[in-house]
Structure formats: C-alpha cells, structure tokens
C-alpha cells in the first residue's frame, strides 16, 4: 500500500485576499472562511478529478469564531441589528462548509478549536481507518484587533493548508511533522529542492 504523503501545501494571509479571484460569493464570507477557502484553493489541486465522497476535511481554528462573534455582537447596536449572513459564520466549523460547497466534497470532516497539532494525526487516522482516500488539513489563525484585546493574543490573519493522501508523488511525513507550520515548511523545502534539480 502506498505511503502517506503531503501532495501540496500552502499558506495565505489577509494580504492575499485583495487579489483573490474566488467568485461573487466570496465577499459575504467572514475572514476565517475567506482565508481557509483561499488556502485550499492555493493548493492547486483539482478535487473534481477525485472521488469527492472520499475526501475529508480537518480544520483547526485557534480562537474558534471569536473574531466573527465579536463582530456579530457589535452589530446588535446597528440599525436593524446584525447581518444575518454574519450569524452563519458564528459557528467555528462554517469554513468547512464553504470548502465542501466549493469543491463538492462529501467526505468526513472534523473541526478543532485550538492548536493545529491534532490536524495531521487526525487526518492520518481518517485515511488509515479507510474513511477517506485523502484529507485536506487547514489551520486558521484569525485574531482581529477586537479579539486580541479580549484574549491577549497578538492580531493575526493567516491560514495554512495541506493535502494528505496515499501516493508516491509528494513529501513523506516524518514523526516531527505534526504541526502545520512544519508540514508547510517540508512541502516548501521539497518544492525548492525539486525546482532546483530541474
């Protein structure tokens, strides 16, 4: 049986959103969903060529939907109340829904609030239990200024994505590749080495 590899990895920040061409509905999403979706799009994988019922999504969100929750509650003071659209994003896992809709994925999904260290092991587990052939891992760190004030963590807006699957084409995971930063670094280093060899 083929080993588990990372076939692609990506990292995006809010600076990348301005130039993103993601369709007319992208604008209504909250920052977390936009970054999550853009990071998956940046993987450059054609998911429609795969069995979409066998592709899972594992996502971690460092502060849940806190940034959007604050925005929503501030909206209570506005005329006619907060945006109904915003309410849909007060669920930390809503970005998984956006990813599933865009790529028509119907495989299993998991959402974790907190560290991204669980992502790769959980994705690996999904594949090894034969619940999925591949798994998109997305780690989102969205701390707006208002959220930062509340929880004392510096503001941040970034997402990292990686696609874990069985195969020969990709970067083999080692035991120390547990968090998304090291996985993305592995993929970047591998890409660099591959491009340098050409």
């Amino acid at each position, binding site marked *: 049986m083929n080993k588990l590899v990372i076939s692609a990895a990506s990292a995006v920040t809010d600076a990348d959103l301005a130039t993103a061409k*993601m*369709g*007319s*509905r992208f604008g*209504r999403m909250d920052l977390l969903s936009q970054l999550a979706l853009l990071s998956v799009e940046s993987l450059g994988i054609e998911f429609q060529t795969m069995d979409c019922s066998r592709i899972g999504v594992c996502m971690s969100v460092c502060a849940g939907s806190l940034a959007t929750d604050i925005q929503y509650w501030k909206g209570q003071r506005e005329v*006619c109340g907060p*945006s*109904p659209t915003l309410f849909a994003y007060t669920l930390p896992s809503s970005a998984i829904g956006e990813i599933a809709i865009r790529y028509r994925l119907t495989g299993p999904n998991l959402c974790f609030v907190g560290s991204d260290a669980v992502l790769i092991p959980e994705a690996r587990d999904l594949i090894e239990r034969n619940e999925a052939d591949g798994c998109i891992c997305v780690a989102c760190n969205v701390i707006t200024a208002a959220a930062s004030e509340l929880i004392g963590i510096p503001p941040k807006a970034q997402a990292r994505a990686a696609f874990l699957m069985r195969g020969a084409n990709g970067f083999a995971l080692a035991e120390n590749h547990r968090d998304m930063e090291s996985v993305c670094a592995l993929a970047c280093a591998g890409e660099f080495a591959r491009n340098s060899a050409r």
Partner: protein
Amino acid sequence: MCVSTNELKEKIIESLRLQDVTPEQIEDEAPLFGTGLGLDSIDALELVVMLEKHYGIVIKDIEEGRPAFRSVRTLAEFIEAKQPAK
C-alpha cells in the same frame, strides 16, 4: 417615489457583498434565487434587512415577500407599492 432598478441593484450588490458583479450584469427580469443571480436563503434574510434599512419596509410574513423577491423588477415594484406616499 419611483424606485430605480439600477439603484436597487447597487443596494443588492452592496448588502450581499457580491464581488465582481456590476449592476449592468444583473438583468431586471432575471430570477434572484436559484438560477440567475443564484442567491440563497441567507441572502433572502439579508435582503429583508436591506429593505427595512434603506426603504423602511418591514416584511413580517415571508409569504408576503416571496413574490417580491422573484426579480429586481418585482422587488422595485414591491418597494414602490409599500413605501408611504410623500
């Protein structure tokens, strides 16, 4: 007050935060939901809020609003019929 369909399209684009869509691309008679502009149920709620915020029209019964949300044209006619005479 006569409601301009162009102005209404701008308000729809703004309230639904539609990216890369211009008023010219939205046809007066095209369906707002499903085909056409492809809006969904959350967009419907957003449009209800937009009607209240910009035109002072409160839709209490969704059945009342359903025919109005067929197209930009029907929505403009609905606003015109509902707005108090000035």
